[in-house]
Structure formats: structure tokens, C-alpha cells
């Protein structure tokens, strides 16, 4: 068994003592050692801590105790998830040297499940970006073609899974930051219903949109990871206070009788590549063949999501990122007065994209502009929620491309933020509506690079979401694995 094994195969082997967790870990650490110089998926590999955890798993197995549902599985964590005593940088200079005194709720749940955290993955600074090029520590490269971006902002997590550095990873998704890199790296990436997974310990970008979710090479693996991290948390007031259904149970049920709507506006949006749309049509045809009832559906407000998102998210970010002021932790650039210290610290600590969004958001919330920008964006958000609700009256799930294109070359869009923002047009509506969505690899574009198909579902219907995703995966053409 190599690092190509699925998470579920690995965990079965570890639980039955066929394979030691430390050996699983060693295989993955060797893969990282061999490949990550080029890929740069990780900001930090926590080999020593990982070994202690793996050894503990093996001891439990040997002692006949239940080592947990993710026993011995290496997991890569996006570096905006707090890990006690381990640097958490958000790929920003401003958090240099900061070690959180606490674990995020999802990190605690991983530990309880026997998972082995292998390191912290690279991201666009504070999760602001779609290519992982906005990292203070340099970009991550796409394992399928290292001249191309892995997408973002969870580019490090997606690349780590695609490169088989870890079978599982966690990312965060504010406007598509799990699904878009999953699509570009040819892996599965899922954004849960808002409130299904606790945000406690996720360094906030835009609080009303952020969700933590799984990345994996198979739908079943992603479902298993989701099952562990989801569920109520008293430390997050926006956490949904009800138990998580078993999302793995229905994976093999197929899609016979399910109503699938293809969102026309998202297939026709600006910049959509025909080869990507063709793959989506092929995917939908496969679902139809498997017994689903497929039809096109119009979600008129969906195309305004991008504009609304780029006001709401920066507005919240401008407030969330105010605390990085040099007073308490992280970077401080000294100056004669407190005000100048703030200026110098924040100028030195934040990259260009973060600065841009802080300025955009500050402006959108300013007296006299609030109604025209932030207020109007919230009204658009309400419209999108309404239009999606109408669509879900007729359909069980909605389908669209995950991204307008396959992975683009490094540097191709860094000069023009607006072009970069267009990457998120298909993924943003689900963030604005708080509904779950998943990207599943489905064949390749004309360039041979992976294409992702997005499935969206109503709030709290993760069971149907994973079920349709599994059917898509089963119908997909054989995947090209990265070298």
C-alpha cells in the first residue's frame, strides 16, 4: 500500500493492525520530503508531533482500544486553523512568530478521531485569493503542472492531497476557497452548510461566509472527514445545534429519481471556457443515465453574487483584520506614536491583496456609503437566497462548473485582481446562501488539466450532496494522477 491508497483503506488497515500508523506517516513524510520543495504545499511540516500522535494510535490498536474513525490518517491543515503551540501564520508576515494557545474545534475533533496532523498548508494570505500566489511565503504549485497555480485560497491543502502528501486535508471556504482549488487540482473539495462545522479556531476572513470543509481524493474519504469535523459546538454561536446525519450511509444509493437542475446563468457566465462547460454537460448526462431527472434552471440573481461578495467579504474582513495592530502579538514595527506604529506594522505585515480588501471594505462601511455598498450587497444576498430557494422547490440539487477554467499559469492573473475575482463566480452563491456545495473531478479540459463539477444542495442536506457527488465520481472518466 502506497500513499495512493484511499483514506478509508488506510484507516481500515491501521484499525485492524495490518499497518502501523507510524509507517503510514513515514510514507507520507517521505513523499513530502521528495516532492514539496517543488510544490510548496506546506508552510510547516510537524513531523515530530505527528510521530507522537501516530505512536499513540498504534499503542491504542495494540491495546485493543478503539483508535478512532480516522486512526492513523495523515491530515494536512490549512494554516489558518489554530493549533496549540504550533505557528499559525495565515501565510502572512503579520502573524510571524505567533503560536496560538489553543486548538481549533476541528483540530480537537481530528485528534479525538485518531487523525495525525502532518503540517500546516500554504494559502493566499488570510484566505484572500484564488491562486495561492498571495502568500507571504511564496506560491504553491499545481501537482498536475508545476507551471500552473493550484487555485486558492486552500491551494496548499488541495495540492497536498493531489500530490499524495496526505490523503486528507482541511481547508476553509469563504467564496470558493475549498472547491476552486479542489477543481484545479483534480480532488474532491466540499463546503458544508454555514454553521454545520464550528468556526472556533478558524482565523476569520469574512465571518458570515467562512466555513471549514474537507479535501480528499475520493467522495467517500471527504464524507468520512466531514462526519468527524461536523456537529454543534457551544464555542461558536453560529453553529447549528443539531446532530449531523450519517453522510456516508447513502453514498451508494445512486441518483435514480433525484431532480438535478443545471444553473444556466453559471454555465454562461463571463469567462466560462467551452471545454469546461462541455465536461459539465457530460457529467449531467451521466447523472441522467443513472436515473436522475435533469433540467436547466435559471437562478437570475446568481450572477450578481460576485459583486455582492466583493463588498460583504471585504467589509467583514476590514473589521476582522483590525486586531493585527502590533499591540499584542505577531509583527510590530516600532514608531514614536501608537498611530504610526499601527501604520508601519500593518504596512509591513499585510500583502497587497489584503490591503486592497481592507480598503475596499472600510470604504463600503463608511458613513454615507454604507447603504449604497454594504446595504445593497446584503439586499442582493437576500435575492440570491430567494432565487436559490425557488430553484430548490423544483430540484433536489443544482449543478454548475466549479470554475470557469482549468488551472491557469502562475502570474497569469496577478496583475488584474478583477480577472482573478471572476474565478469565484460559480462558487460564491452557496457562500452567500449558506448552503452546502462540493466539487468533484470530472475528466479534463482541452489542456489535459482537471475539471471540477460543482453540486449544490439546500441547507443541511449534506446527505443528498454527497450521494450525488458519489454518483458523479462513479461516472467520471478515469483520472490522470499527477506524476
Amino acid at each position, binding site marked *: 500500500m502506497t500513499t495512493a491508497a484511499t483514506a478509508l483503506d488506510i484507516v481500515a488497515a491501521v484499525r485492524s493492525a495490518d499497518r502501523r500508523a507510524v509507517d503510514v506517516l513515514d510514507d507520507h513524510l517521505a513523499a513530502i520530503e521528495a516532492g514539496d520543495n517543488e510544490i510548496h504545499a506546506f508552510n510547516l511540516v510537524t513531523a515530530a508531533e505527528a510521530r507522537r500522535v501516530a505512536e499513540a494510535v498504534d499503542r491504542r490498536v495494540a491495546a485493543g482500544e478503539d483508535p478512532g474513525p480516522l486512526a492513523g490518517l495523515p491530515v494536512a491543515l490549512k494554516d*489558518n*486553523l*489554530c493549533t496549540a503551540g504550533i505557528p*499559525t501564520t*495565515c501565510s502572512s508576515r503579520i*502573524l510571524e512568530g*505567533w503560536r*496560538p*494557545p*489553543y486548538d*481549533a474545534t476541528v483540530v480537537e475533533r481530528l485528534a479525538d478521531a485518531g487523525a495525525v496532523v502532518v503540517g500546516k498548508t500554504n494559502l493566499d494570505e488570510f484566505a484572500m485569493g484564488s491562486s495561492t500566489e498571495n502568500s507571504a511565503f511564496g506560491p504553491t504549485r499545481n501537482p498536475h503542472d508545476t507551471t500552473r497555480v493550484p487555485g486558492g485560497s486552500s491551494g496548499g491543502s488541495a495540492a497536498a492531497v493531489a500530490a499524495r502528501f496526505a490523503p486528507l486535508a482541511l481547508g476553509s471556504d469563504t467564496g470558493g476557497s475549498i472547491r476552486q482549488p479542489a477543481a484545479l487540482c483534480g480532488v474532491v473539495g466540499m463546503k458544508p452548510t454555514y454553521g454545520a462545522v464550528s*468556526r*472556533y*479556531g*478558524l*482565523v*476569520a476572513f*469574512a*465571518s*458570515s461566509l467562512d466555513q471549514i470543509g474537507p479535501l480528499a481524493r475520493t467522495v467517500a474519504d471527504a464524507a468520512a472527514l466531514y462526519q468527524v469535523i461536523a456537529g454543534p459546538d*457551544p*464555542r*461558536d*454561536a*453560529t453553529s447549528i445545534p443539531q446532530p449531523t446525519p450519517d453522510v456516508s450511509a447513502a453514498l451508494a444509493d445512486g441518483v435514480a429519481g433525484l431532480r438535478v437542475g443545471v444553473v444556466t446563468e453559471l454555465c454562461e457566465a463571463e469567462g466560462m471556457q467551452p471545454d469546461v462547460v462541455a465536461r459539465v454537460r457530460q457529467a449531467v448526462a451521466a447523472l441522467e443515465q443513472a436515473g436522475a431527472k435533469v433540467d436547466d434552471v435559471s437562478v437570475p440573481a446568481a450572477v450578481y453574487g460576485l459583486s455582492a461578495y466583493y463588498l460583504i467579504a471585504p*467589509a*467583514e474582513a*476590514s*473589521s476582522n483584520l*483590525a*486586531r493585527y*495592530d502590533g*499591540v*499584542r*502579538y505577531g509583527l510590530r514595527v516600532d514608531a514614536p*506614536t*501608537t*498611530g504610526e506604529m*499601527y501604520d508601519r506594522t500593518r504596512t509591513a505585515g499585510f500583502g497587497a491583496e489584503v490591503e486592497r480588501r481592507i480598503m475596499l471594505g*472600510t470604504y463600503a*462601511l*463608511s*458613513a454615507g456609503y*454604507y447603504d449604497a455598498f*454594504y446595504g445593497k450587497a446584503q439586499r442582493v444576498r437576500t435575492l440570491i437566497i430567494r432565487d436559490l430557494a425557488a430553484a430548490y422547490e423544483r430540484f433536489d440539487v443544482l449543478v454548475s462548473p466549479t470554475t470557469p477554467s482549468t488551472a491557469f499559469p502562475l502570474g497569469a492573473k496577478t496583475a488584474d485582481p478583477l480577472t482573478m475575482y471572476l474565478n469565484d463566480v460559480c462558487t460564491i452563491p452557496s457562500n452567500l446562501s449558506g448552503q452546502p456545495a462540493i466539487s468533484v473531478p470530472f475528466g479534463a479540459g482541452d489542456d489535459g488539466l482537471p475539471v471540477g463539477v460543482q453540486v449544490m444542495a439546500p441547507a443541511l442536506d449534506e446527505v443528498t450532496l454527497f450521494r450525488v457527488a458519489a454518483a458523479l465520481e462513479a461516472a467520471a472518466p478515469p483520472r490522470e494522477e499527477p506524476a
Partner: protein
Amino acid sequence: MSTTAAGTATDWEIVVGLEVHAELATRTKLFCGCPNRFGDEPNTNVCPVCLGLPGSLPVLNEQAVALAMRLGRALHCEVRRSIFARKNYFYPDMPKDYQISQYDLPINVEGWLDLPSGQRIGIERAHMEEDTGKSTHVGGGGRIHEAGYSLVDYNRAGVPLLEIVSKPDLRSAEDARTYVSELRRILLATGVSDAKMEEGSLRVDANVSVHPTDEPFGIRCEIKNLNSLRSLGRAVDYEARRQIELREAGEPVRQETRHWDESEGRTGTLRTKEEAEDYRYFPEPDLVPLDPDDEWVARIDASLPALPAERRSRLAEAAGVAATTGAVAVAVERGLDELTLGAIDAGADAARVLTHVEHNLAIDGAERLDPGKLAALVSMETGGELTATQAKDVLVEMVATGGDPAAIAKAKGYEAMGADALVAVVDEVIAAHPDEWTRFVEGDGKARGKLTGFFVGQVMRATKGQADGKSVTDLLRRRADA
């Protein structure tokens, strides 16, 4: 009320509205489990949430909501569905560089507070928010701009506050002081806050404007740094005078925030309207809307104690005096109204009971006094068995020991001067001063008044102060009119 400025015919009216911040007496902070406690070692009552560490999230304290509603209902407010909002500004003692507060949808709206005078002051809102930490500026006389460095204590960061905003219904410095005193009484009576101005758990900002009585309200200035009732009164007086002088000199009042300097006794510009911060309020996405159901509000209502205004009018009615009587206010203020009512109920003379409460019972343990025993003491006094001075001595002993007034009086040897003995002494004094007595009998009210003092003095001398002055006066009158 109006203030007439010297040398002009203009009647100026002073208009004051107050913003009072009260720290809620919760066990823990507003959004985390850290203790809400004053005076601990700096930065010991802190956690990732109240330090605003990256990734931390606020969770609303239910007890804080209950206390906020409690004050709201005590101020006759409507409790509404509310949301929290972020107030964004940079300051080192604010860990997140935004304060979680309430903005356009506060929990309590539209209430009122009745001053002891009966004047009704509108309450616009009473909303919840988190307190900031506390900065200490070292060097440069403690001012931030001249300080060598600053230290921040975050123990107070995240402590729950209620900001109580009055309508501009106050008309003088005295009104403002009375309002804060009354609000403080309500905060204490309801257990919502310990309301200590000296510890900063009760803080006041004043909005002051002036206008000629026949014109609309003037431009207002907000005065900060009012750390005592005395400061509040002085600052409002100073600020009103400053504004009147400006207006009379033909100059406009500028809308600004001003700082009260207690040692200088003046206000100075802190920032003008143009320099005012844009707080960029927006709904707090980390918290869900707060919507207490009717049942919760009803439970709060049912648990409210009798409030000072209510207690004053109940006592005043029982005592047959006006609710504005000083002794009534004092009785309620000291929590002695139940005792007073009990003693009156047991048949004691209300005026004498109130006199004791006002003048002789500002002592620890007075609230534990038995109303029946207080009534017994007062009837000994009205029966002439004890003088006012003796009664006070006995009362102090009663509070200290819980003893019976008759036994204490006996032990002190205060029982000698019975009613019959007093009559004999008065008759002796009359006989010894026939000229004065004739003038007393034939004199008008004014002459009698002067001579009453003379005769009482003589009786007191003869009894070595054991006689009761009021009884002597009554006896003299009865003898003269017989």
C-alpha cells in the same frame, strides 16, 4: 427652569441628556467564561476570546441578557428583538480593535425614570456592549501623548456594560445629579450593577446644550470624564455657562466632544465634529439575533423588587407626608422603609419614626431592627417617658444588642421623669417666675414663642436635661389656656 444671564433679557434654558454606562454584576464576562471581577492582578482574567486572539469567537452570556432586561423593565422599557453590531475603531485597550455593541436595534427601548420630585425623564434606550481594557500611561503625567510607554490590563476587556441613554429631558446640573442618583438606586435595588463610580462600574457622559426659552434646542456638546456626581454637576454648570457666554457674545457653539478637567474646573475640546470617528457599524456576524420570548420577559417582570420610586410613595402614603419628603427618600435609600412601615403599622407616631430614621439610624445593623420594638420606643417617647436625646441613646443600644427599649431605658436610668413628675416641675418653674408667666399668658404668639424658650430652659435646668422639650411646651400651653 431657566437661567437669566446677567445684563440681558434672555431666559436661557439648559438641556441635558445623559449616557450612563453601568457594568453588569455578572459572574463572568459578556462573551467568555472569564471572571468579571474588579481589582485582580492585571491580565489574569483573560482568555483567547476576551483577548480577541485570531480564531476566537464570542458566545453571549445569558445572565448578562437577563440583567440587561431587568434594568430595562425597571425603567419601563420595551424589550425588543435586538442584534449586536461592531463599532470599529483602533485603540490599544480594545483587543479586537472593534467593540461588540448594539446599534440600530438595541435590547431595551422607550422607557422612563421618575425623579423623586415626580419629574419624568424619558429613557431612549439601554443597550448591551462589552467594556474595553484599561490603559495606564507611564510618564508624561499619565497622558497618552506625553507618556514614555503604556501598559494595558485586559481584565476589564469584555466585561458586560449597559449603556443607558436618557432623552434630553434634564434641565439643570441638579437634575442631572438627581437622575444619576436615582438610576444608581435602581441599579442597586435590582442587583443589575454594583454601580460604584469610584471603581468605574458606573460612568457618565453628559450632552449639554443651551437655548433661549422661545427658540429650539441649541447645538450640543458631549462631556466626558465625569467620575463623580460632583464632577457631573460642576461640569454641566461650567459647560452651560460657557455656551451661554459664547451665544451672548454672538458666537456659535460648535458641536464637539469635550473633556472635563476636574482640577482646573473646566471643559476643553477633545475632538470636533469633523474629527469624529466613523465607527463603520455593521451587524456582528459572529452572533445571532437576540429575541427573548414573552415568557422570559414575564419572568423578569415577576422577579423585579419594589423600586425606589414605588417604595417612596408607599412609605409617604403610610406616613401621611409628601413623597418628596427628605426623610422618606433617606428611609428608602438606606433600605429602612420596611422597618419604618412596620413601626407605623404597629401604631408609632409616623413623624417621630421618620425623624429617627433620618437622623439616628445611619448606622450598621439598623435594617435588622424589630419594627415592634421601634414602635415601643417611639410610644415611650411620645408618652413622655423618654426625652428625644434619651430615645436616641436607647435606639443606638437597641441596634447594637437587639434589646427591648424599656429594659435598656431602665438600665440607663432614663425612667425617672414620668409625666406626673414633669407636671410638678413645670408648676414649680411657673410659680418661681410670676412676671414671665403673666407675660406668657397674656402675650401674642410671637411673645409666647420667645418665652417658651425661657421656660423650657428653666425646666431643663431643673431636671438636668431629662425632660422632653415638646412635652414641656405642651404643658405650658395647657396651663396658660386653662
